[in-house]
């Protein structure tokens, strides 16, 4: 295999992953999605590191990725705990609840227009009825007919 091409391709893919993670982190508002996007950026770096490790025939890059995985695990634990706590306090995973930390002269972001919730989504968790209700004969209610 062409080692240079391999390095080039992996670095590009790593860069793309990093960029996509960056976009997601900046754009999305769901705390967990933001966290996953941060992990995606880490993945991009890992891909590049493994490529360099192979190119230089050196274990160092792989070691670093190994440590990154461990740190990602630690980060996930702490992050999850924090997110859970924030969720308990605001009742929502929306990051916009936590704008208190902004600078004093900054405007808080308020949503100008909220997309209306799709009716299908709204009705979604309902269970379908179990079947067609049978017709009831009123006479049947008064006395049980014999044979």
């Amino acid at each position, binding site marked *: 295999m062409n*080692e240079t091409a391999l390095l080039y391709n992996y*670095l590009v893919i790593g860069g793309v992953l990093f960029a996509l993670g*960056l976009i997601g982190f900046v754009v999305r508002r*769901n705390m*967990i999605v933001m966290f996953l996007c941060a992990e995606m950026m880490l993945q991009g770096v890992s*891909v590049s590191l493994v490529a360099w490790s192979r190119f230089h025939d050196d274990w160092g890059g792989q070691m670093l990725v190994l440590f990154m995985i461990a*740190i990602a695990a630690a980060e996930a634990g702490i992050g999850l705990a924090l997110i859970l*706590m924030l969720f308990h306090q605001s009742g929502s995973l*929306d990051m916009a609840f936590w704008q208190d930390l902004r600078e004093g002269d900054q405007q808080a972001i*308020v949503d100008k227009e909220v997309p209306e919730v799709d009716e299908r989504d709204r009705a979604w968790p309902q269970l379908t009825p179990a079947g067609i209700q049978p017709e009831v004969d009123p006479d049947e209610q008064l006395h049980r007919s014999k044979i």
Partner: protein
Amino acid sequence: MTCVPLLLGQMDQLVRSPLCWGIVLGATSLWLLLSGGSETLRGIGKLLGAISLLMLTATLMIVGDWSSQLVFWVLALITTGGAAAAITARSPVYTAIWFAVSLLGTAGLFLFQGAQFLGVATVVVYAGAIVVTFLFVLMLAQPEGHAPYDRISWSTFAVPTALVGAAAVIALVLTSLDGLRSSEPLTSPPQIATSQQHMAELGGHLFAYHLVSIEVIGTLLMVALVGAIAIVLHGRKSRPETAPDHPSRPTTDAGLPGGTP
């Protein structure tokens, strides 16, 4: 700032390459997908995204014979496509699943490089533990999987700004790597990729040269574990009876469980 003249100098060359168009198309598709348009716009965005992914993949260099090239292409598409789908999916559960798909692609890329242990460890740790835990939380917090804040971004400028920034990152990577494209191919496979005793060598290296780091990482994990438990316990105790009403609070959806205090 040195990259600006570099970019400008190669602009001419860039505009004529499919790479540039791939990036532009990709940015357009992400813009369509992220800015909360109608279903038709999203469909167009998905189509454009697929085209741009294919274009970008096609501009990658040829790594070897057709079979390994094919495997590489598939893995690259899974990785990048999964990542793109993850950041654009509206339901966070789908985000987590697409991220897991992207992780599987990454693991495949690691295996393709001969980094067996890392490939499998990525699946075990990331896909197996982290993402599952997140799915867990997502499902508890948002059982219906739809919330208005997953459909809109911070403001009108957030999406274009992020896209321009990301495009700049990719362009920077591509231009700075341009030297690699023209360099002569190296074909001798490195020793670390062909080793028959992969695990033994990796372990030996890990504990011979990085012993202190291992200890530090172990300690870090332990502290993180204790910290996570402490945070959750603390949060449970100091949970206010009624959450204070923030003036800056954005719109809430009455359908959310516990959305309005």
